């Protein structure tokens, strides 16, 4: 009897002492908050890999400045190579292995779509996907807060500017044959329709295409006076370059994904000049106070020597700022439900990016989870310099 009691006591002690606290929120300890992100550090979209690195350096800065209510951010970033299968495997591994409280950013529409349902089913918050896809908010999801202006609206803003301000009538598009490209295509078609126009050419580009001469020939045949580029950085440069080689010189316009003019000027060897892009953050070569501050306090201090202070790097900070604000507002007693409630209360929040507004969850209102629908337009000048063409433009 005595032995049996001893064994029972040992089992009870082990259970109470060693078993995990089943009431604790996943990804939270007394001293840590685990945040995850995927990002292409290799592969065709590696140029956008700076997003995840920018977020990482921002979290280091947050930790060094006291963390969040006594907790430090533990950042888990992995390279998915812009491959949805890798994204899914990596997210599941971290979520079920390490336990992640919330995910932030994550470059790519297809990659994000690969894990969206999984994260939403598990009620894991995901803040600021690094893509302007309509899929994040149509229909809205309780745990998904989008910050990136929708590609659909970016395309509308660019077409509106081309038609109304530049007086263009023959508009064509080269789009990546995935969700990102198709969102841009749909926005373009809708905006053209409102002006009684139709696209003069719609040219799909496959992610693995390297030789884009047939694509540019089709654009040239359409005699387009404006060409929207809803492709990757590499494809966009090849299209502009091949067009130049063919003696075809329309007004090129690109989404925010190609708005890092210093980089675009470098890899296009100066051919990016005059291209108009939409964007939603201050130019990194400007004297915007936050750009200067973050460069001195984050980039100069934490970024490795080979890193560049470009738009994609600061975008990584832009997506993470509302997350940090939400965590701060939630306080020490941090749970996912309380955090989501605080995120819903973000009104008029603006730091590096556009003004962010969320609302309580309403499955019929995309703006309860789409934090912004504003962008502005910039034009590339020689040597990667930037001319700001418009103020913030809001699309409904």
């Amino acid at each position, binding site marked *: 009897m005595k032995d049996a009691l001893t064994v029972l006591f040992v089992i009870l002690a082990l259970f109470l002492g060693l078993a995990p606290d089943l009431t604790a929120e996943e990804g939270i300890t007394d001293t840590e908050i685990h945040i995850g992100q995927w990002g292409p550090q290799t592969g065709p979209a*590696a140029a956008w890999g700076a997003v995840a690195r920018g977020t990482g350096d921002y979290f280091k800065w947050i930790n060094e400045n006291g963390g969040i209510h006594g907790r430090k951010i533990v950042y888990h970033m992995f390279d998915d190579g812009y491959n949805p299968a890798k994204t899914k495997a990596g997210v599941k591994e971290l979520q079920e292995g390490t336990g992640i409280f919330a995910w932030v950013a994550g470059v790519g529409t297809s990659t994000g779509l690969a894990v969206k349902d999984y994260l939403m089913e598990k009620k894991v918050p995901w803040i600021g996907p690094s893509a302007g896809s309509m899929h994040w908010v149509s229909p809205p999801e309780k745990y998904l807060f989008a910050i990136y202006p929708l590609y659909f609206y970016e395309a509308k803003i660019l077409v509106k500017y081309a038609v109304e301000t530049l007086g263009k009538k023959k508009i064509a598009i080269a789009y990546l044959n995935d969700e990102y490209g198709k969102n841009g295509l749909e926005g373009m078609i809708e905006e053209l329709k409102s002006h009684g126009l139709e696209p003069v050419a719609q040219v799909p580009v496959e992610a693995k295409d390297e030789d884009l001469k*047939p694509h540019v020939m089709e654009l040239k045949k359409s005699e387009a006076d404006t060409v929207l580029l809803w492709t990757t950085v590499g494809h966009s*440069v090849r299209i502009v370059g091949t067009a130049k080689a063919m003696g075809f010189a329309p007004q090129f316009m690109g989404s925010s994904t190609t708005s890092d003019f210093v980089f675009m000027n470098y890899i296009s*060897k100066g051919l990016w000049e005059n291209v108009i892009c939409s964007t939603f953050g201050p130019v990194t070569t400007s004297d915007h106070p936050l750009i200067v501050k973050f460069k001195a306090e984050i980039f100069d201090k934490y970024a490795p020597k080979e890193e560049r202070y470009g738009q994609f790097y600061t975008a990584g900070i832009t997506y993470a700022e509302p997350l940090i604000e939400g965590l701060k507002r939630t306080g020490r007693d941090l749970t996912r439900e309380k955090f989501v409630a605080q995120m819903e209360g973000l009104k008029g929040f603006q730091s590096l990016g556009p003004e962010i507004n969320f609302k309580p969850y309403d499955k019929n209102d995309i703006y309860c989870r789409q934090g912004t629908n504003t962008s502005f337009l910039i034009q590339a000048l020689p040597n990667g310099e930037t001319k700001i063409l418009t103020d913030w433009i809001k699309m409904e």
Partner: protein
Amino acid sequence: MLDFIQMVVSGIAVGSTYALMGLAMVIIYKTSEVPNFAQGEMALASSFLAMMLLTTLKMSVVPAFCLAMGFAVLLGCFLEFAILRRAKEPNILGMIVITIGIEMMILGIVSWKFGAEQKTMPFPIGPYDSFMIRDIFLGQLEALILVSALVLMTVLFLFFRFSKLGLAMKATQQNGIAARIVGIRTNRILMMTWGISSAVGAVAGLLISPVMMHPYMMWDPMLKGFAAAVMGGMTSLPGAVFAAYLLGIIENLFGGYISIEFKSVVAFVIIVMILCFKPSGLFSKHYVKKV
């Protein structure tokens, strides 16, 4: 008609890069019967070395390219000597897996050392400078690749046909034991083959680097070059080059007239068709068993 001519010209232009990679693959296959899947990454390493010499050491193009070519030869020889030769009881499948392993290794080293962000190599000819003849255009850089491919094909063809070393390489491939009996040092021949092949691949890598550089830049040329080599019969140098141009033209015509979305998969459809209906390739007369 103008469109058709432009598509053919564009096809020939893009086919030149495939031709160089196809040539490089055929050289190794001719002597060892191993399709070298590390071919692209071997060229990648030389290209990034040239980039480093040009940007970090501020060397001019000619010496940087010469050093990169020298490095390519050494790299090829080293890989054969240090890795492939060490394979115990080597068979074709095992050797193929080893080349895939080498490919992943070089890719990892280049990504780690140089980063994955796109770059562009300084070069006297702009990547999009072109000759215009009426309304037909041809990129100047592509013209240079075209000339390089044709010159290299001719030189290699003559080398294999008439030089002692070339004949020794042929003998090594056809019957290694007999070659050794007549005094050919087959190991050394194999090592030289890898060196020469690596240098030919490096020409392709160096000449496409002024357009855009990133660790995956050689995948497409390598796969298309392999498709061309298969089409050409894997052992025929002129066959690989001719097939590469044919492939470039078919891709462009397919993209222009049938479907731009499926343009990039044409090469692989061709590989499957060739392997199904004419496994010896379009230009190979012998060695049906090998392909």
